[in-house]
């Protein structure tokens, strides 16, 4: 008897929950109307798109502004944090090519999923037309020899610059291209990428071909960041070698996002670029990376020097800590070594090496920075050389420079 009454109670509880859910659903029913927009001119998109050409294949990509999105889809997709990427691939080769959309965004939306997010609030007729419309705008594989395909991929929102990573596959053949595509409504006023490209164009570069010459130049770079008035700070513990279109996506693949952070100084200027490791569905160690472009060009590639560290407490730091200049975890080598691993798993790393940097700072005699952090380190900087060809774990070369193992044996 008692058991039965409990079961009934359970049922009632379920029913209550169900009703509550249904009420939530009903509450969500605002009405949206859909008018199929007139046919849109892709010419304007193509004109401002970023493009790259390789192996007889041209890839162009553009991100829509809200206005354009509304004009093309009939609805502003950014309401649901969906960012459509316009992609055009011109194939002048003899291969039939497939585009891997998972490589662009592992959590991309299918066209019908995009539609589903909005149709709930539409009349049946409007909903049907909306689904058809979204489907018709989808990017459709494959790209046959000597043909061009264009359309949209529905991705998750980025806010500043989108690294559009394009993996193309054919029988026994793969190719990778990356485009840095500006986002029309980005929140920072100046276009960092354009600034950097201008800086690269204006620089009087120091060309280096030889590895040992590179090593001695890297060891002469400043040891540390500085505050605005020149007080020595955190160690410059990484060197990234590669052009923007390889280092950018290598970091992006490992969940670094281009995010402005508080300034630290080197060469008398704040960092040229900064990134935070934010993670996808699972949060990652929240490393902060700042990089400065150096004058050095190694075998034609840009050489960046940088500082990577983790805010003290990482993902477990309380929300109370000062966001503007958080105190860093004293073991800065930990963050550096994590970046080395990320570089390895990006599949775009060809060589790793270590050179002398700030020099050893013992755990027992921590050094203090102007921001109020302390740190200890083995004193080395990691040197990571990137390339655009896919590299597997077994193919990465280690340069016989400073041997980390010797440092740890002591």
């Amino acid at each position, binding site marked *: 008897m008692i058991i039965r009454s409990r079961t009934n109670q359970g049922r009632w509880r379920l029913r209550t929950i169900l009703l509550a*859910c249904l009420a939530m659903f009903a509450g969500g029913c605002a009405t949206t109307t859909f008018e199929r927009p007139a046919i849109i001119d892709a010419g304007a998109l193509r004109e401002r798109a970023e493009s790259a050409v390789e192996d007889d294949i041209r890839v162009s990509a553009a991100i829509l502004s809200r206005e354009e999105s509304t004009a093309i889809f009939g609805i502003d997709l950014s309401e649901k944090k969906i960012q459509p990427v316009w992609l055009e691939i011109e194939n002048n080769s003899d291969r039939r090519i497939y585009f891997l959309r998972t490589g662009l965004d592992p959590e991309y939306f*299918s066209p019908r999923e995009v539609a589903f997010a909005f149709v709930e609030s539409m009349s049946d007729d409007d909903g049907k037309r909306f689904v058809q419309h979204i489907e*018709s705008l989808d990017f459709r594989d494959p790209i046959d020899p000597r043909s061009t395909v264009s359309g949209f991929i529905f991705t998750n929102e980025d806010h500043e610059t989108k690294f559009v990573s394009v993996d193309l596959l054919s029988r026994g053949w793969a190719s990778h291209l990356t485009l840095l595509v500006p986002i029309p409504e980005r929140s920072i006023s100046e276009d960092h990428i354009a600034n950097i490209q201008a800086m690269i164009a204006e620089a009087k570069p120091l060309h280096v071909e030889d590895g040992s010459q590179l090593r001695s130049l890297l060891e002469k770079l400043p040891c540390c960041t500085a505050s605005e008035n020149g007080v020595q700070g955190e160690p410059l513990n990484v060197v990234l070698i590669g052009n923007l279109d390889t280092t950018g996506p290598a970091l992006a693949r490992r969940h670094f996002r281009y995010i402005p952070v508080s300034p630290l100084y080197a060469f008398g200027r704040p960092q040229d670029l900064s990134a935070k490791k934010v993670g996808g569905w699972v949060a990652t160690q929240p490393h902060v990376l700042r990089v400065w472009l150096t004058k050095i060009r190694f075998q034609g590639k840009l050489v960046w020097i940088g500082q990577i560290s983790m805010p003290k407490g990482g*993902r477990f730091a309380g929300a109370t800590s000062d966001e503007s200049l958080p105190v860093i975890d004293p073991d800065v080598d930990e963050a550096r070594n994590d970046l080395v691993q990320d570089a*390895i*798993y990006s599949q775009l790393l060809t060589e790793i090496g270590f050179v002398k940097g700030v020099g050893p700072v013992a755990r027992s005699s921590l050094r203090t920075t102007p921001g109020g952090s302390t740190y200890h380190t083995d004193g080395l900087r990691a040197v990571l050389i990137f390339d655009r060809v*896919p590299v597997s774990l077994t193919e990465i070369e280690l340069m016989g420079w400073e041997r980390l193992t010797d440092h740890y044996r002591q």
Partner: protein
Amino acid sequence: MASGVRRARLMLTWYWKSGLLSSLCLVIPLIVSGCATTFSPTPIDDVPFKSRAQIQTKGGLTVTAAVPTSEEANAIYGVDLASKEIQPIWIEVENAEETPYWLLPSGLDPAYFSAAEAAHAFASSQSAHDGESITEHFQGLRFKNPIYPGATASGFVIVNRDEGYKALDIDLISREDAASFTYIIEDPSFKGDYTLVDFYTLYPIEEITDLQDEHALRDALELLPCCTTNKKGSEQGDPLNLVLIGNSSDIFPALIRRGWHGTEILWSKSLRRTIESFLQGSRYRYSPISPLYVFERQQDLAAQKARGTIHERNHLRLWLTPFRFRGEPVWIGQISRDIGVKFTLKSATISTHVIDPDVDEARRYLVEDLAYSQALAKLGYVKGVGVVSENAPRMNLVGDPWFTDGLRAVMLFEPRPRALSDVEILQWEWPLPMGASASQGLRDASQ
């Protein structure tokens, strides 16, 4: 004094009657463990987790891995790691090679925790002294690189907690070489789908056909059932649109590497969590999946990959077939992309997912996803259910429409790592270009 005791006793009775006591019973130990005045971890050798360790050897490298349960981890670390959704993995590497090796914790979990970071979760709420000893203890337990020639190194890497089985990718690199090890380690306390099925005895030996030839494999795969059914087998549901072939230690880590997780069977705790995650749109990774049937039994294994919220996730169900290909198990399965949730009385979970009717899209997603897993060796397509057009869709068992080109994707797995360009294509069927019938809404002004 006496009246005080009596009053306390009265209050206790009152609490007990009002049901408050039972909730207090839950709260008090939490508080106590949260501000443990005596931080006293158990010495690692007194915790018997290593009895479940797995050992693999490649060349001169011997790698042993073990996963402590939540209780064991609690004992070793002296704090409740599981309360922060983290867990330690114990690894021992014996290096009989001539060069030093480095373990890459990122391979175990790209979002692993540094010892200092994990310690911070517990140390920050402690007195300065206890906080320091916690941090020191965490540092002492961690795995320390490098592993010198002729030496053995062991310690813990702290990763995001998984329920059920833990797939471990252990990558070691040296100046000359890299070595990869993959393990699947089960958590005895998890009630995943797979624990219901004994794969070894599922088919008697005489029912198993080991195919050697690719043509014979293709023929066999085309004759497998077209679709899932209901329990009675009287109604057909979703199409069986994929086949996975390979050793379990290659297939399942590949899925896990790409963020697929096992699902809990339907039991009350899990059901409650599904409802909670439905209400909050939160991210419960292991919510159960409703049963579908093939070979007169429900799925042997189900996995899901969550995206933004519970409303957006992909579901995968697999059944072991009586076939082997060159000795390796052949699985048939079904994948769908959930694009939202609706209520139904046809499923025990009350709420069910609305699937994307273009089921080929989900199939394509899985193929691409696994192409990045570093373990996909071959890809091909064979005939399955046959063409079902968008204009005359079929319905699955919960009344969702679906349409398809009718093919099933066949994926063969081998030990990683394999590069993207190394995926071999089987010259069988091939999906028609997706755009074949589509009218493009975007026109070029110049056309």
